[in-house]
């Protein structure tokens, strides 16, 4: 389905951001998307896409949670039992 430049509203655009960033938007929609946010386009959506990128970057700076040290110690114990078999 191709959406013309005029048809892509801000409310529609925010639902396409992930497809856009994942590079899976069909060419026509991609062109509408870019036209909407670039240059003299929509400042609100331009900022929105920027914030999604900032969100992804911030999430990427988190340290993964880990299992408890007790659980890890138990597993290494299990490993040694397994090796001894």
């Amino acid at each position: 389905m191709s959406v013309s430049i005029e048809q892509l509203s801000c409310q529609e655009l925010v639902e396409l951001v992930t497809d856009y960033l994942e590079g899976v938007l069909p060419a026509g929609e991609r062109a509408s998307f870019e036209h909407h946010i670039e240059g003299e386009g929509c400042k609100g959506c331009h900022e929105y896409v920027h914030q999604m990128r900032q969100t992804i970057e911030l999430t990427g700076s988190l340290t993964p949670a880990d299992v408890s040290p007790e659980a890890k110690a138990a597993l290494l114990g299990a490993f040694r039992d397994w090796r001894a078999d």
Partner: protein
Amino acid sequence: MDDAAVIAALRARDEKVFAELMRMYNASLLRVALIYVATRAVAEDVVQETWIGVLNGIDRFEGRSSLKTWIFRILTNIAKTRGQREGRTVPFSALERPEAVPEAAVDADRFLPPDHPRWPGHWASKPEPWPEERLLAGETRAVVEHAIEELPPPQRAVISLRDIEGWSSEETRNALGVSETNQRVLLHRARSKVRQALEDYFAEAG
């Protein structure tokens, strides 16, 4: 180390390699387990059982999938069984048919109504830039962490694997056993909510 080297090391009972694998995957395994079971304690049990399953199965592993995918399949099977035993209803719709329940990335009241004469669906209150100097503050990171914890477990698992662990979409969908589209829908909802949490935070604190 590639898969073949890791598999050979495990078969040779190399403890260092096993410990390293645990370090790499424990956090992700825990997140995925929490899709199916209710508590962190049970999820830790499931992760534990998974590693025992890996050790017991490694000699028979045929390498038809990547080692990572195989490990996550073991986890998913154990977690599903465990969740059913607990009488927990597995959120199939959330994981396998996320589109069944629509969710907007941004509240409808942020936009002009569809019958607006000139700008239907355009911003009524547009996003304002965030204060750059506060983006990297510890408190901001805590907001992101909290927002992720609050997500429904399937969304939480996807955003953790994709954006915290840095996995590809293919690795993520293989580990979770979901379609490419559903993986993306879950990621979209998760990221949209985290963005909203940040916007709320900066609006309040600003």
